[in-house]
């Protein structure tokens, strides 16, 4: 009987083997190989031991720190705008009697759009002469901008794109959590005389802190890995003037733009460390662990 059980288990492992092999080949091996490469000067075929030189080089490199600054700048403002805005819109939709699903779909569409395609469209949205954004601004009597042709506004162009893209996700998750707040709390507060704003402020927001923490942690992980949209809008070197040069952009440029695979791998592990430290920091700040 025992033997039969063992055989059955072996069959199951046999079925799992292709997945394990896939994981080992396409996930575990590249991760280990990249770690190994980070200690070599490598152009892909010729390798030379470098010890921790690549890590020192990356830490000393002005371009890398420029990339770190850009990544944090764009990430910070993206989250600062998208989380409150998405939550407010979700709260409004949650209160609506009609067209609830229509607005959910409208706001969610950008999120399911490929960020690469969205960035291509934003090349036109942010066009200085015939772009949608400048047309809108000038029709409201507001000053226009050259957007992607200037360092500061180029970063804000990416922030606008990212907020537009991310908003749907925040709205849908917020809506799901808003609906999970027990209705009897609102009913009892109504009996106590609380108006809608007070209910939102004192009941809804405190009940959403776990969700906000989730947005912050996930948002920062996404922001630190930012690449596609800055690559489309600013090219390999994050033009103009490296204003759209991100950490992953640095890794891509060094690895595939110049065959400096050792430097790129070292930067990839530094990014991993940054994400790890920042996530722990975020979890502590937002007390997500406690909430969970």
């Amino acid at each position: 009987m025992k033997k039969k059980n063992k055989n059955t288990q072996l069959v199951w492992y046999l079925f799992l083997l292709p997945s394990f092999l896939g994981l080992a080949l396409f996930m575990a091996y590249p991760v280990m190989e990249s770690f190994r490469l980070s200690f070599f000067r490598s152009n892909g075929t010729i390798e030379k031991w470098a010890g921790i030189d690549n890590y020192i080089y990356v830490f000393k490199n002005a371009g890398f720190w420029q990339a770190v600054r850009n990544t944090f700048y764009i990430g910070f403002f993206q989250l600062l705008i998208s989380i409150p805005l998405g939550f407010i819109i979700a709260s409004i939709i949650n209160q609506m009697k009609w067209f609830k699903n229509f607005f959910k779909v409208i706001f969610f569409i950008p999120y399911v759009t490929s960020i690469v395609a969205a960035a291509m469209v934003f090349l036109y949205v942010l066009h200085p002469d015939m772009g949608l954004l400048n047309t809108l601004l000038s029709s409201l009597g507001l000053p226009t901008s050259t957007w992607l042709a200037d360092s500061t506004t180029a970063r804000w162009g990416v922030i606008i794109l990212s907020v537009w893209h991310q908003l749907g996700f925040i709205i849908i998750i917020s809506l799901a959590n808003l609906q999970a707040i027990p209705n009897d709390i609102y009913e009892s507060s109504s009996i106590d005389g609380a108006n809608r704003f007070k209910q939102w402020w004192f009941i809804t927001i405190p009940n959403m802190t776990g969700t906000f923490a989730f947005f912050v942690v996930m948002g920062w992980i996404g922001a630190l890995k930012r690449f596609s949209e800055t690559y489309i809008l600013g090219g390999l070197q994050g033009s103009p003037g490296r204003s759209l040069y991100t950490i992953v952009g640095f890794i891509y440029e060094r690895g595939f733009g110049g065959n400096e695979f050792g430097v790129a791998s070292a930067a990839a592990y530094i990014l991993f460390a940054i994400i790890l430290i920042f996530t722990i920091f975020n979890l502590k700040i937002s007390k997500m662990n406690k909430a969970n």
Partner: protein
Amino acid sequence: MKKIMALILIVVLTMSTFLVGCGSKDNDKTDNGTTTDNSTDNDTGKDVADEKEWSGTIKVQMIGSFKMEDSTDPVSGVKTKGVHLLKEEFERTHPGAKVEYVLMGWDSYQQKTQAMLMSGEADVYQVPGIASFAAQGLLEPLAPYIENENYDLEKYINGQINGWKAMGPEDSDLEIYGVPVLGDTRVIVYDKKIFDDWGVEYLSEEPTIDEIMEKAAKMTGKNPVTGEENYGLYFRGKYASDLALNIGESLGGTWGTGFRYKDLQVNFNSEEMKKGVQYLKDAVAYAPSGILSEQGNELFLTENNNIGMTLRIGPGFLKPIYSNGLDERYGASLLFVNPEKGMGGVFEGSPCAIGKSSENKELAWEYLKFTGSEFYQQYLWDEYMAAPVLKSATEWEHIKAVPQMEVVLKAMGRLWGPRYPYRSAQPKSILASNVELALLGQATIEEALDNAQKETEEWIKEQQK
């Protein structure tokens, strides 16, 4: 009338290809007046009658918009003959041999080629990034093949062989690892109508930067005829550093010396380079506001164009102007060269090379020779308007029918060779970003170029470890 002429030209080009493609063993008299004798040495480099029997299959990788089968452009309706024509011709002239193609787009071509070379996926590769592949020892040196057969390198346009020279891991000098296949270069293209509207004399064949600036200044503002806003010039912001260097070359400057990264010495903060960036900074005033994000030139090469001239544009400009019947409206002029050296500008195009791991190098070398045949080069021009790399191209009726090509071919013969090696690595980005900072006014020209020089020297030092 112009539209009709352009239409006739397109039909003629298409028909000529059809005739070439459908050629039998007999001589095919094409409409370009040249005899594409498929069985003679002059055409494909092979005389089938007394050729030996070949065996084996070679894989050829090609980068671009190539398609295996015939296709029709959905916008213009122009038909393009597929790469199967090359396959048929090569297999016909090399009885017993088989050729297979791996066709890929320009997106991430360097990475894809690197992966293919490392895994020995093909025998023949199109390698615009030849220097980095040769340095890794992934390519076969061609000198023994060339010497063995006394292969005629003189048939290629001046500088094309030198431009693609590279260094393998064991080489102490530049060697031939690839033969030129796709020609490319950058020229100045200008709109004669805008020049006429403003009463400005057309650009000379070889204008100086001062001539360009002076004419651009005159054509910026409200067009006196149409009343629309005009810009004197346009250049691609992301490639501003290449243009600045090219202007610097016309003032007697050079990019630097050396070929291997560890041996490089760059002149990024030379006086000539500083003047080059200053010219560009002044030129921004005559350009659309989105120039640093490559925006604002959408109307160039169209009926409603609002830009006087575009500096540094590739032969790709030919297709839209001929498709739109605007071929007589747009003229071309040469970009700058260093007066002493007689060359200037970034070396462009693609060579073909044999992978070191190829198991059929003899046949692969045959294919390389095939790429240098008139048949192959005419096919690329007729079907994809790829600039030929042969001197004889100037005599082809197909080429003569496109007057702008005279300038393009002349420009190809003046490119800086060997190509700027720094452009395949980090110094390209360092220089480009710093020139952008200078153009944005976020750093002075001196600060930006000194910083580019310093950062690059640090990077070179890193390569010497």
